[in-house]
C-alpha cells in the first residue's frame, strides 16, 4: 500500500470557498486573479497597479477605483470514514479499499494544494485516527500504517461524535461508509452536512450479494451485533438478496439526493477513475 503511488483524480467543489489563502478553487475572496469581479475604492484595496483610470474618471465622487478579481482559494478536503466492523469484515478487500480511498483522496487534495482532514468514526472518534488540516505525505503514510492494524469497532458508527471535528467553512466532504445501518443514525450529522459539498462514497462488496453461491447452506454472522442467520441458498433467494440490495441502492440515492448530493457506489475495489468521472459529470 505504502509503496504504491496512489491514483489521483481532479475535483471541483460546488460551493465557493471563503478561505483567504490562494489556491485552486473558485472562492468568494476577491483579490488578484483572472476573473474580473468589480471595482472597489482604492482605500479598500490599496493596490495602485490595478487602478482603473476610466472607472476613476467616471466616478461621480472623484475617487480612485481599483479593479478586483476573483481570487482562487484553497478549500478543505475532508474524509469522514465509517470505522465500524462491517467496513473490515470478511475479506481483506474492504480494508484495502478503505486505505486506497484515503490515500487517493489525500494525494488528490495535495495535488491541488488543499489541506486534507480525516476523521474515522467507529464506536467513538479516536484521536489517533484523526488528522486535521494535513498537508504532508508522511503523515498520511503513518496514518495508513496505523489503520492497517486498527480495530474496527463492532457497532454502528456514532456519527454525532464527529460533530466537533467538522469544519465550519464550506468544504469538500467525502463520506465513506457502507451505509449498512439504519439511516436515521445519520440524522445528527445532516444539518452540519448541508453547508458542505458532500460526496457519499458507498463501499459495497459484490461477494455480499451478487457473487453469492447458487446452492448450499451458509450461515451469516453479523459483523456488528454478532447474531447469525443460516440461509439455504438457492437461485430464488439469491435473486431476492440482489433485489434487496438494489432497493437499498435506490433508498440511499433518494436519501442523499434529498441532501443535494449523489452517492457514488464503489464496488469491490477503489478506482480513482470512478471519482474522476463523478466530478466530471456532476452538474453545477
Amino acid at each position, binding site marked *: 500500500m505504502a509503496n504504491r503511488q496512489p491514483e489521483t483524480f481532479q475535483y471541483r467543489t460546488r460551493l465557493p470557498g471563503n478561505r483567504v489563502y490562494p489556491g485552486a478553487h473558485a472562492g468568494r475572496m476577491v483579490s488578484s486573479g483572472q476573473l474580473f469581479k468589480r471595482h472597489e475604492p482604492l482605500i479598500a484595496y490599496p493596490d495602485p497597479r490595478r487602478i482603473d483610470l476610466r472607472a476613476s474618471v467616471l466616478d461621480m465622487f472623484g475617487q480612485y477605483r481599483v479593479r478586483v478579481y476573483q481570487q482562487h482559494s484553497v478549500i478543505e478536503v475532508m474524509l469522514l470514514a465509517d470505522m465500524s466492523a462491517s467496513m473490515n*469484515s470478511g475479506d481483506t478487500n474492504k480494508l484495502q479499499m478503505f486505505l486506497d480511498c484515503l490515500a487517493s483522496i489525500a494525494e488528490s487534495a495535495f495535488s491541488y494544494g488543499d489541506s486534507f482532514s480525516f476523521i474515522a468514526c467507529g464506536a467513538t472518534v479516536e484521536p489517533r485516527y484523526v488528522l486535521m488540516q494535513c498537508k504532508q505525505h508522511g503523515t498520511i503514510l503513518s496514518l495508513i500504517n496505523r489503520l492497517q492494524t486498527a480495530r474496527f469497532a463492532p457497532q454502528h458508527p456514532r456519527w454525532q461524535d464527529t460533530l466537533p471535528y467538522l469544519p465550519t467553512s464550506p468544504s469538500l466532504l467525502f463520506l465513506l461508509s457502507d451505509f*449498512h445501518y439504519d439511516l436515521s443514525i445519520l440524522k445528527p450529522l445532516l444539518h452540519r452536512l448541508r453547508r458542505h459539498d458532500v460526496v457519499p462514497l458507498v463501499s459495497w462488496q459484490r*461477494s455480499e450479494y451478487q457473487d453469492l453461491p447458487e446452492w448450499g*447452506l451458509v450461515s*451469516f454472522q453479523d459483523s456488528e451485533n454478532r447474531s447469525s442467520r443460516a440461509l439455504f441458498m438457492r437461485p430464488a*433467494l439469491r435473486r431476492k438478496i440482489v433485489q*434487496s440490495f438494489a432497493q437499498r441502492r435506490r433508498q440511499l440515492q433518494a436519501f442523499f439526493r434529498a441532501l443535494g448530493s449523489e452517492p457514488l457506489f464503489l464496488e469491490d475495489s477503489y478506482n480513482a477513475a470512478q471519482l474522476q468521472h463523478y466530478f466530471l459529470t456532476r452538474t453545477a
Partner: protein
Amino acid sequence: MLAVDTPLLLAGLLLTLLPVFNNGIRPTTYPWLAILPVDPLSSVISMLLRLCGMATIAALILGLAGLHRTEQSRERIGYGANIVLLLDRSNSMDNTFAGKTPEGADESKATAARRLLTEFVKQRPHDLLGITEYSTAPLFVLPLTENKQAIQAAINATATPALAYTHISKGLGMALELFADQPLSGSRIVLLVSDGAAAIDPDSELQLRQYFKQQQIRLYWLFLRTANSPGLFDKPQDARDDNAGAMPERYLHLFFSSLNIPYQAYQAESPDAMRQAIADINRLEHAPLHYRERIPRQDLSGLCYLSATGLLALLLTVKFCEVRR
C-alpha cells in the same frame, strides 16, 4: 419403565443445549443481516438442524448411559387353561400300540403322543403349559410358561429313548406342585399321558388327595392302551385278581374317580383314538384365563446408537452441502 445403567452420565444431556447456540454451520461474517430478506424455508431448515443436533447428542448420551426398558409384566386375558402335561417316559412308551418295537412305518406310542401334543399345543395359543415327566423318578422339564418355543422344544425332547419303570404317584405329585405358586385363574388341568399305571402307596394317596383338592385340578388321563393289556374299565374275571398290584390301571382309575374332581379318562388304543381324545380336551377347556406375561429387560442403547448414527449421517450430508468460501 425406562431406566439407565449409569445415571451420572445423564448430566451430559446438558450438552444437548449446545445446538441452541450454534447450528454447526461455519459462520461467514456479513456486514448487515437486516438487509437479507426473510426466508421461512431457511429458518425451518436451521431449526431442524438444531433439533437434529440436539437429538444426536441426546441419543449418544442415552446410549452411553445404557438406556433400557426394565423387565415388565403385562396382564393378559386369554381363553385357555393352565395345563401341565404329565408324560410317561417308561420303556413301554417306545413300543407301538401293538406292544412291539416299532419297525418301518410303525409309530411308537411316544412318537404318536409327541405328534398329537405338538398339534394340541399349536391349537391353543393362550394356554400356559408346563411339562413334567415321570419314570422311576419324576422329571421336572418345564414350569408353567407361555413360551411356545420352549414348550415345543420340551415336547420334542421326549424323542430321546425312554427310561425305566413307571412311578406315577411321584410324577403326579410334581405335576401338582407346578400349580402351587400360581394365581388361581383359568382352569387348571393335568393331562396325564401314559400307557400303564402303577399302584399308589397309601402315603402318596393321602397326599395326592389333598393336593388335588387344594389346587382345584381337572384331570384328564389319556391312557394309551397296548393291545391285550388290561384296560381302565375292565373288570377282572377272577375276584382274586381284583387288587392294585394285579390291575393298576383299573385301580388308578378308581382312585381318580374317587377324588371328587372333574376327571375324564380316555382310553386310546390307536393314534386315531388318541387324536379324538385330545380334540375332546381341546374343545372342553376354553375358560377365560388371566395371566401375567413377562416382558424381559430390553436394551435400548443399540437403538440409541443406531438413531445417532442415522442423524450423524444426515448432519454430515448437510455439512457437505455447506458452502465453502
